[in-house]
């Protein structure tokens, strides 16, 4: 990627280069836009970067990094425990899909990462994920750590105030499941609202 300073020069001989650079940038934006559109449409474009290094805390406060999870497929979902509707519905579907997969589920580590670290401390996360069975790992972290991992996974989140109290807020957040391979590379997004049966069928195809 050329440094922007190369294009600031108003010299005529660089004018063409500048225009070329701008066109290149526009083209890049178009490609990324198309990629995101495909991604939202459920396609699996090659080379789209989802995921990356992270260091977060599990239910016991123990550090877990992306490297610790290598060797297994990783099915990751972002949400928060004060979400009484969509998040538990999704996690229950994930747990049921894992049950349907039988022994193949042992090759998958399901991970629930909070986007509400203020309320979702390690003990809160531990109790919450345990209610969906033994398979889901709950991860939290500092605000900065969560911001970093959400950015890597292209997850949007923002608080929405519902009152004056410190806990009077809900979180807006992307609701999507991601499957990453045993080497940490992104494989595919999965619909979070398709139901356990569909999710199990989709996963079965991807677990090769």
């Amino acid at each position, binding site marked *: 990627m050329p440094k922007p300073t190369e294009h600031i020069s108003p010299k005529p001989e660089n004018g063409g280069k500048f225009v070329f650079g701008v066109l290149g940038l526009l083209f890049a934006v178009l490609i990324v836009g198309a990629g995101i559109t495909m991604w939202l449409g459920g396609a699996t474009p090659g080379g789209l970067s989802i995921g990356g290094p992270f260091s977060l805390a599990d239910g016991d406060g123990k550090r877990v990094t992306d490297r610790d999870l290598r060797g297994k497929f990783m099915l990751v979902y972002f949400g928060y425990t004060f979400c009484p509707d*969509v998040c538990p519905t999704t*996690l229950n579907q994930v747990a049921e899909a894992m049950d349907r997969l039988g022994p193949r589920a042992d090759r998958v580590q399901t991970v629930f990462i909070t986007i509400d670290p203020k309320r979702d401390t390690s003990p809160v996360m531990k109790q919450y994920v345990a*209610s969906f069975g033994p398979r889901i790992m709950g991860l939290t972290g500092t605000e900065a750590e969560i911001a970093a991992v959400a950015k890597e996974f292209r997850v949007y989140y923002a608080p929405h105030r519902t009152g004056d109290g410190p806990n009077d807020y809900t979180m807006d957040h992307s609701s999507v499941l991601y499957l990453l391979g045993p080497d940490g590379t992104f494989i595919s997004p999965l619909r979070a609202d398709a139901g356990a049966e569909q999710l199990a069928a989709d996963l079965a195809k991807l677990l090769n």
Partner: protein
Amino acid sequence: MRRLLLAALLILPVAAHAQSGIALTDAFTRAAAVGGVGGAFVTIANTGAADRLTGVASPDAEKAELHESLVDNGIMKMRPVSGIDVPAGAAVKLAPGGYHIMLMGLKHALVAGEAIQLTLTFAKAGPVTTTARILKAGASMPAGHGMDGHGMGGHDMGQMPGMSMPGMPMHDAPAK
């Protein structure tokens, strides 16, 4: 004995509000930890004049609100709503992914197989109470699987999809 009591609770609200035309069925909530939040869901049938659900309360939660979940451009949002219209002759379903009752500050752990009480207040019909069974965390009431004619005990839960899932540590949760 408990079943009798619960059965009585189920019948009473219907009987008491036969004239208003509001009937609550298929109420359920999900296992949750003490102090946490829970979502509760119910079907409201209105055989009378147009009415509006304006409030909700539960003796098992510090606070209860009406909320709506919506997906906006792939972003999940949850918003409080001031009320939910129940048109004449219509049935409104509070179900996962749409409207729900948000229970906040749970006074005790919600344990699958047990039940809690919900009181919904309507602009015209006034308060109507129902019993919501507690399903496992994240579970939804299967279609056509109401409470009528079924026991409220744990055996019934075994027939529901996914109910056999092991590991329900909520049973060990303190402060019942």
